[in-house]
């Protein structure tokens, strides 16, 4: 892992005597490699490594007795700071509060909707799941099964546009005392103008307090482009990272946070409906460093 590689780098360098700035370069090369192997975006790695260089030189790593540890600490601290800076607070201040989930195909939106519904219900609120995916075969059925598994009602309409469903759901929730709406949308490509416009229209109707971009933790270099597109069109309020129960290093988390500047609010660690946790930037930092 990176800690061991840096240890080796500095051990070899120290044999020659005093460390120089050029030696810090060698350490930074190892940092860069580790981040790229962890799927952090190429450009993000560049700017991040520059941050580390500035601090490493400024904090006199060259004079340190344990330069490897010092560099690791700087990298870990910078990663944690970059991905942190916010609590997993859900804005449920309105009644009804609206949470909208968007993202690429297969990211985990429908499953995450169920998890959010469960935890919101456990907080004493009365959530309503809204089935706005009218395209994927059995998508509505999937949300209905998930809803019944967590004891939360699902609102759906056959053969209607998502905007019509959203409006009807809003009316239904007001008439029946639901105070949180969780909107599941169809997976889509950020380059599909028509479907992205559908989300823009949906947002306009719902005015959601939370608009979460749901992203798969194993996403590679393209995470940045996708997240940026979704954010540009929709001004998301946060990110939910899924499938963290695998062994993907999850560098996409850093890339997305860096480029989009919105908080990663939740982390999903499994398929079961109780596996949603608040996002921990420090744990993510360790994971990315491998």
């Amino acid at each position: 892992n990176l800690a061991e590689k840096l240890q080796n780098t500095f051990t070899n360098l120290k044999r020659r005597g005093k460390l120089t700035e050029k030696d810090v370069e060698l350490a930074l090369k190892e940092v860069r490699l580790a981040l790229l192997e962890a799927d952090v975006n190429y450009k993000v790695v560049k700017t991040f490594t520059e941050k580390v260089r500035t601090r490493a030189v400024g904090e006199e790593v060259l004079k340190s007795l344990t330069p490897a540890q010092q560099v690791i600490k700087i990298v870990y601290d910078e990663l944690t700071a970059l991905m942190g800076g916010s609590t997993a607070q859900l804005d449920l201040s309105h009644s009804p509060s609206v949470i909208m989930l968007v993202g690429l195909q297969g990211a985990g939106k429908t499953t995450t909707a169920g998890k959010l519904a469960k935890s919101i219900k456990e907080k004493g609120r009365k959530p309503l799941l809204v089935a706005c995916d009218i395209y994927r075969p059995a998508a509505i059925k999937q949300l209905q099964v998930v809803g019944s598994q967590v004891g939360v009602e699902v609102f759906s309409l056959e053969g209607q546009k998502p905007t019509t469903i959203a409006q009807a759901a809003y009316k239904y929730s007001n008439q029946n005392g639901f105070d949180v709406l969780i909107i599941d949308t169809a997976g889509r490509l950020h380059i599909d103008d028509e479907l992205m416009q559908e989300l823009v229209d949906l947002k306009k109707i719902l005015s959601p307090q939370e608009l979460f971009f749901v992203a798969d933790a194993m996403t590679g270099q393209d995470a940045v482009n996708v997240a940026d597109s979704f954010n540009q069109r929709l001004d998301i309020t946060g990110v939910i990272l899924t499938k963290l129960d695998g062994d993907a290093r999850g560098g996409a988390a850093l890339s997305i946070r860096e480029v989009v500047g919105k908080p990663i609010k939740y982390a999903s660690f499994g398929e079961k409906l109780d596996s949603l946790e608040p996002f921990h930037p420090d744990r993510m930092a360790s994971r990315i460093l491998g």
Partner: protein
Amino acid sequence: VLKGKSLSPELFEELEEILISADIGVGSTMEIIENLKLRCAKEKITSGDEVEEILKDEMAKLLGEKEQLKPAPTTPWVIMVVGVNGVGKTTTIGKLAAKFGEEGKKVILAAGDTFRAAAAEQLEIWAKRSKAQLIRHEEGSDPAAVAYDAVQAAKNRKADILIIDTAGRLHTKTNLMEELKKIRRVISREIENAPQDVLLVLDATTGQNGLNQAKVFKEATEVNGIVLTKLDGTSKGGIVIAIKKELSLPVKLIGVGEGIEDLQEFDPKDFVNALFS
């Protein structure tokens, strides 16, 4: 992309960025660039256009010749489909069923995902769309039992092709990988030489983790081909180069959309050209 440019360190850095951004991976990228530099020196290459052509040639060589999903010599031809969660297994099976159906083949689909909400209902819709028959049990039943029933049905009904859907699972979950091995054993016990094909479905948006997925799934179920899905997006799926290099595992098909027609044969040359477009 390199038109009109001359050889320089900047040029090779630009190429490095293109390759890494395509999820080819740092290790593979450095190897490719090193070989490229050696060839450029040896062949006295001076222009950017020439470098690009050589690079494409090097990468196409790594991917090898085009390999298709070939019909098995015996019937029923059993195809098992595996992969991590949400990559496009069920949808790919629907597309395959439609393609075989159009060729006049009698296709049976097995709803081997007995875990995820509405998994069988989803496959049922694809079966209807592609005019294939469906074998399914209740949610929560044993997937190996579904596989067993499907295999018996394929034999009894003289089906040409049986495609077995499985639940998405992360390769790190040992018990779930054991379940997959059990499903495969049931199939091979009931039909000689089956499953003739085990396809790993890989999402083109996946980064370096794709190599881990390929390693573990191949070891567990003898995967012999990859379907690379969601290439209609902006991800390039470059990890398949490392997968071919280290595991000799070829991509045979690509998914280019959510519609029933959106399945194409994998062409290494087209793939490499797309990396630079």
